[in-house]
C-alpha cells in the first residue's frame, strides 16, 4: 500500500512529541519538593505516562485511519473498474461484500506487515505497560499502603517465595527418589 500517508502521520507525531518535550514536558519535569514530595512525584510520573500512552494511541489510530482510507479508495477504484468493464455495479449485496472483504483484507495485510504498524504496536504496548506500572505504583503507595491493605507487589513477593519453595521441594523429592532407587 501507499506509505506516504503513514509516513506523514508518523512525521507529524514525531514533531508533536518533540514540541511537547520542549515545552509542557519540561514543566512536568520540574522537581517536586516538600513533605508530600514522594506522592506528588508518583503523580507526576503517572501524568507523564498518561500523556505518552495517549500520544501512542493517537498515532496508532491515525495509522489505522490511513489504512482504512486506502482500503476504501481501492474498493471504490475496483468498483469503478467493474462498472467500466461490465456496465453495472455489483447488483447484489454479496457481490459488493466479496469485493469489499477481499480489498480490505489485502490492504490491511500490507499495512499490518509494514514497519509502521510494527513500530506503532511496539510503542503502544511499551507506553501502555509504563502506564500500567506507574498506575499500580501510584495506587499502591498513595492509597493501599496508607490504608494498610496488601499490595500486588507484596503478593508477587509471596508468589515468588511459594514458587521457590515448590521448586526446592520437587528437587528434594527427585533426589530422594533417585537415592532410594540406588
Amino acid at each position: 500500500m501507499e506509505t506516504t500517508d503513514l509516513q506523514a502521520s508518523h512525521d507529524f507525531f514525531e514533531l508533536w512529541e518533540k514540541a511537547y518535550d520542549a515545552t509542557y514536558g519540561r514543566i512536568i519535569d520540574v522537581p517536586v519538593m516538600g513533605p508530600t514530595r514522594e506522592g506528588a512525584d508518583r503523580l507526576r510520573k503517572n501524568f507523564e505516562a498518561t500523556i505518552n500512552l495517549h500520544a501512542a494511541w493517537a498515532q496508532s489510530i491515525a495509522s489505522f485511519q490511513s489504512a482504512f482510507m486506502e482500503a476504501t479508495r481501492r474498493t471504490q477504484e475496483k468498483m469503478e473498474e467493474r462498472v467500466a468493464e461490465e456496465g453495472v455495479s455489483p447488483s447484489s449485496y454479496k457481490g459488493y461484500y466479496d469485493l469489499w472483504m477481499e480489498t480490505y483484507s489485502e490492504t490491511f495485510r500490507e499495512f499490518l506487515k509494514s514497519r509502521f504498524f510494527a513500530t506503532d504496536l511496539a510503542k503502544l504496548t511499551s507506553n501502555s505497560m509504563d502506564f500500567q506500572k506507574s498506575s499500580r505504583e501510584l495506587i499502591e503507595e498513595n492509597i493501599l499502603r496508607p490504608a494498610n491493605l496488601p499490595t500486588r507487589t507484596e503478593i508477587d513477593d509471596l508468589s515468588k517465595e511459594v514458587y521457590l519453595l515448590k521448586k526446592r521441594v520437587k528437587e528434594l523429592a527427585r533426589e530422594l527418589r533417585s537415592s532410594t532407587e540406588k
Partner: protein
Amino acid sequence: MEVADVVESNWKAMRMLDVFLKVPEFSVGTTPSEVVYTEDDMRLLHYIPLVKSPYPVPVLIVYALVNRYYILDLQPDKSVVRKLLEDGLDVYIIDWGYPSGVDRYLTIDDYVNGYLDNAIEKVRELSGAEKISLFGVCQGGTFSVMYSALHPEKIRNLATMVTPVDFDTDDGLLHVWAKSLDADKIVDAYGIVPGNLLNTGFLLTDPFRVLIDKYVGLFEKIEGNSDDEEGEQENQETVKNFLRMEKWIFDSPDQAGEAYRQFIKDCYQKNLLIKNEMMLNGKRIDLRNITMPLLNVMGEYDHLVPIAASKPLNDAVASTDKETMVFPTGHIGMFVSGKSQREICPKISSWLRTRSGNDSS
C-alpha cells in the same frame, strides 16, 4: 428495497433465530480418557485405547501453552486423537491448565525439564516402555524439540506439527511484530500475561476474515440449507461445530510471565534455538543431540507458523531417519479440516506406527 424484500429479510432473520434457539448442548474433547498424573495446574491424560493390544511405544502429545489441548479432539468426527487411537496407538496428552498469579515465575526450564519430564517419566512407568514417542504441536513442538535435545535417551520418535524452531523470518506477522516487542515491560507490568492480550495479536493477523467474514460465512451456510428436517439437522450441526471452534479460539489461558519473557527474547528476538545457543537452567540445547527418527509436519498456508520457521529443523538435527510433510492447509486446518482427517492424520499415524513396534529401533 421493496416491501417484499423487507418481508423476506424478516423471515430470514426469524429462521436464523430459530436455528440458534434450537442448538443443543455441545462439548469438546469428548474422547474417553483418564487423568493419570497431576502436578500443580498440569494434568496428564491417558486416552482409553480402542484396540485390545495397542502398539507398545506410547505417544505423548504436547500442545502449546497458548490455547487449549482439546483442539486435537475438538469434535468426535474431526479428532486427531481419535484417529491415532483407531489406528491402535497408545495416546497420552498434556493439559497445561490455566496458570494463575502464583505461576508467574515459571520458566521454560520448569515446563520442559519439570512438568514435561515428569509427564514422560509417568508415561514410561505406566506403559513399561523405555522410550516413548513425542508428538509436539505448535509451541508444544518447540518444547518437544528442546526436550528431545536434552533427553534423547527417553525419546524413541519425535513428530512435530506446525512447530517454530527458526524464528528469524518475516513470513508470518507474529514473527515481524515480536521482534519489536518489549517483553520485559509486558512481564514486569502484568506478571501473568493475559491470554486475551495474545489472542488480540492472533486476531489481528487477519482481522476482517476472523472478526467479520467468518460469521457472515456461518449465516450464509445456514441460509443455504433447506427448510426441511434434514436442513434443520444440518444447521444444528453447523452451529454446534462453529461454537466448538469459537470456544477454543477464545479459551486462551494466561501465560506464565518468565516463560513468556524467555520465549519472546530467546526464540523470537535472538533466535537462539536453531543456533544451538539456547540455555535452560545452565544447560545448552544442542539440536545435534536429536538422533531419533524425526517427522516434521507443516501447513503451506500457515500464517502463524510459516514453513520458513519449521523447515530448518530437519537440517539442524543429526537424525538419519527424518521426513518433512507439507500439506496445503492453514494452521488450524491441520487439526480440524476434512483434509486433516483424510490425509494428514493417516500419514502421521502411519509414520508413528511403523516406528512404534517392539522390533523398530
